[in-house]
């Protein structure tokens, strides 16, 4: 028995999982048209590598990863690419993103699939393969899985997340019940890539059938994995909290699980890794729960890019349905339209009606009752964060660890004043991020401006120098012409002197500026101030460096003035 640990707070919302676990997973029929976004993962969007009008095969690469954190996008079925354009996607902004439209030809013809033997592959090769196959975390964050395997330090524990703590969602539950063997094989691949010994599979105790199925599969495989039943408590499926419950280790704030020797994958990700390695199939479909206000709530194996409207139609939405939520009711996003496509991160779509999810009463002022603090799994003080966020006091909000908030929504769930706390936090977070970017842009602008000032100054100096040279040449010529045997007055000395004086003056000026800009009294400064001053110094040094470089090749960059 593994000794379990606990975390602060958490809530017990009604799970509503029974509804969608009555019938097995079925494959959704091929839709009339698929819309495949090029950004389905955390990080940079993939770059399209197909042309409009091109025929693609199932599993063919249509978007290749760009940059470090990125992933591949594949054609979910065979057919013709009819458009690559901005289309609405499942995002709270309702803003469009680049998508490929694929009209299936009905053949569902696979491209080349190359099964591999993972035992013969190094971690590096496996990572490359997973990146090629577009494997990303299927729990919701969609972080590229290959990145999670490339770790700088030793990982000694692999945690597999089958907690599925959010109400309504059952896709992992059903996947574990029906495809436990594949999941276990996938776990073994991930374990091999990480080189760990200990594997803990955490499943919440409201999924007894999934636990039994997984235990059976583990026993059959004779791998020394441990299936651990964890108490049902939202948000126990948050990676950091599951790790705490299973191992007792707290992932430090702002750090990754690997920093404490643990890595965490979702069960569905493990299954996808198994398909990718042992069947050579890239990630083109996933299991998704369709539930809520529908006649037949259940799970579907659906192609990526399937419009949600098709899935909802299969389950038959009840007439009073007026909106749709992607993900669970605690952390999901309301769909801007029901015809947006399914993406890799979509684990669930809930048809919602006012009867099922009554709109919250109008928010009242916060009375600082701290019920939110009692349920916060990160032990934050949500009432303070709210106070600062609502008064736009972002600095204070950050000081109170706003960025450690996991947006689980437990605080808003219990708030007696019905304040949309999470939205306030999201607002504050995105404002702070935007401000950071602005600040960086301002710093860049300052640097460029300072360099420009420096360049202009130098050009002036050069001009003066050339002028002096000309004068000197003229003087010399004059001297030579005037008398051959003349008084031993050296005119060059004079000119040299003036020039030297000019240079000296410039140097003195520069020194003066430097002295003026360097504060002498740097004793009793706060660390922030010191950091700021250091940053300024670093910038200054950088400018000097640039200047030195530019001086070396004697050609200012973007030299364009007609001087």
């Amino acid at each position, binding site marked *: 028995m593994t000794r379990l640990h606990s975390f602060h707070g958490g809530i017990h919302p009604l799970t509503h999982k029974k509804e969608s676990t009555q019938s097995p997973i079925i494959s959704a029929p091929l839709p009339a048209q698929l819309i495949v976004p090029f950004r389905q993962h955390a990080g940079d969007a993939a770059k399209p590598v197909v042309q409009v009008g091109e025929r693609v095969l199932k599993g063919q690469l249509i978007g290749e990863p760009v940059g470090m954190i990125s992933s591949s996008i594949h054609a979910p079925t065979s057919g013709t690419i009819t458009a690559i354009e901005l289309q609405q996607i499942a995002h709270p902004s309702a803003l469009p993103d680049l998508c490929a439209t694929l009209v299936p030809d009905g053949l569902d013809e696979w491209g080349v699939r190359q099964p591999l033997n993972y035992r013969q592959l190094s971690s590096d090769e496996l990572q490359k393969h997973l990146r090629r196959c577009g494997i990303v975390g299927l729990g919701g964050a969609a972080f590229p899985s290959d990145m999670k395997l490339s770790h700088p330090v030793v990982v000694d524990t692999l945690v597999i997340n089958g907690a599925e703590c959010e109400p309504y969602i059952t896709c992992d539950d059903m996947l574990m019940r029906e495809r436990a063997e594949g999941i276990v094989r996938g776990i073994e691949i991930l374990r091999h890539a990480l080189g760990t010994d200990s594997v803990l599979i955490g499943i919440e105790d409201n999924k007894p059938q999934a636990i039994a199925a997984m235990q059976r599969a583990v026993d059959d495989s004779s791998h020394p994995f441990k299936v651990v039943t964890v108490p049902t408590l939202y948000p126990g499926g948050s990676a950091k909290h599951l790790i705490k419950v299973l191992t007792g280790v707290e992932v430090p704030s702002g750090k990754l699980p690997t920093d404490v020797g643990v890595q965490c994958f979702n069960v569905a990700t493990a299954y996808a890794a198994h398909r990718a390695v042992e069947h050579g199939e890239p990630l083109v479909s996933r299991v998704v729960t369709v539930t809520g206000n529908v006649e037949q709530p259940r799970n579907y194996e659906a192609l990526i890019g399937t419009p949600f409207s098709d899935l909802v139609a299969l389950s038959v939405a009840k007439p009073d349905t007026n909106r749709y939520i992607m993900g669970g009711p605690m952390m999901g996003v309301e769909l801007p339209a029901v015809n947006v496509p399914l993406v890799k991160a979509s684990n669930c779509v809930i048809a919602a009606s006012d009867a099922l999810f009554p709109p919250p009463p109008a928010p009242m002022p916060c009375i600082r009752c701290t019920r939110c603090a009692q349920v916060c799994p990160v032990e934050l003080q949500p009432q303070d964060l709210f106070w600062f966020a609502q008064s736009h*006091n972002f600095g204070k909000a950050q000081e109170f660890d706003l960025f450690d908030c996991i947006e689980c929504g437990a605080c808003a769930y219990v708030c007696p004043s019905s304040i949309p706390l999470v939205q306030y936090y999201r607002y504050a977070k995105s404002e702070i991020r935007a401000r950071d970017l602005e600040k960086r842009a301002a710093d860049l602008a300052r640097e460029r401006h300072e360099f420009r000032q420096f360049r202009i100054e130098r050009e002036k100096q050069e001009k003066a120098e050339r002028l002096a040279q000309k004068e000197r040449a003229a003087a010399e010529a004059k001297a030579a012409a005037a008398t051959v045997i003349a008084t031993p007055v050296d005119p060059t000395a004079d000119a040299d002197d003036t020039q030297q004086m000019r240079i000296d003056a410039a140097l003195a000026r520069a020194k003066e500026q430097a002295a003026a800009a360097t504060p002498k009294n740097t004793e*009793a400064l706060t660390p922030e101030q010191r950091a700021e001053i250091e940053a300024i110094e670093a910038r200054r040094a950088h400018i000097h460096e640039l200047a030195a470089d530019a001086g070396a090749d004697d050609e200012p960059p973007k030299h364009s003035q007609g001087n």
Partner: protein
Amino acid sequence: MTDYLLILIGTVFVNNIVMVKILGLCPFMGVSKKLETSLSMGAATTFVLTIASGSSYLVNHYLLGPDLAYLTTLSFIVVIAATVQFTEMVVKKTSPVLYQVLGIYLPLITTNCAVLGIPLLNVQAKHNFIESLLFGLGGALGFTLVMVLFAGMRERLEGADVPAVFRGTAIAMVTAGLMSLAFMGFSGLVK
């Protein structure tokens, strides 16, 4: 010993210079927007007040005596002004940002009625040197205490939905009044 302690407690709480004697309101309202600033202001005032009450005792006792009592106010102001000037230089050197933040209020410590008030009260109460020092220190600590408490409340009030006409100084005045009300609870504690 107990007497000294009572003087200290009495001046900090019961006869708080700001809340009960209503002296030194100018910096109390002016530099209490931020906690750190108010703490620094409190520290600067504590320094000035302690030095001023000590040296003004010396001036009064040894230099002026009963014959030249009419010079008390004049000479105290000179002493205080010099102390403040000195403090200003030290602050400017050691913490330029604080210097900027305290701004006009730093030289204005000179005209802070609490700073002149305490030495004069010392003379009136016929305190000896130690008592004068403690009276000054206690008064200054009381000043710092209410400054810091007030600043804490004002920082929190930043986010409050205060009616537009009361925002800023108005609500700060109301708060100061209510604080003064609370300090009346101490009355009678130390005679």
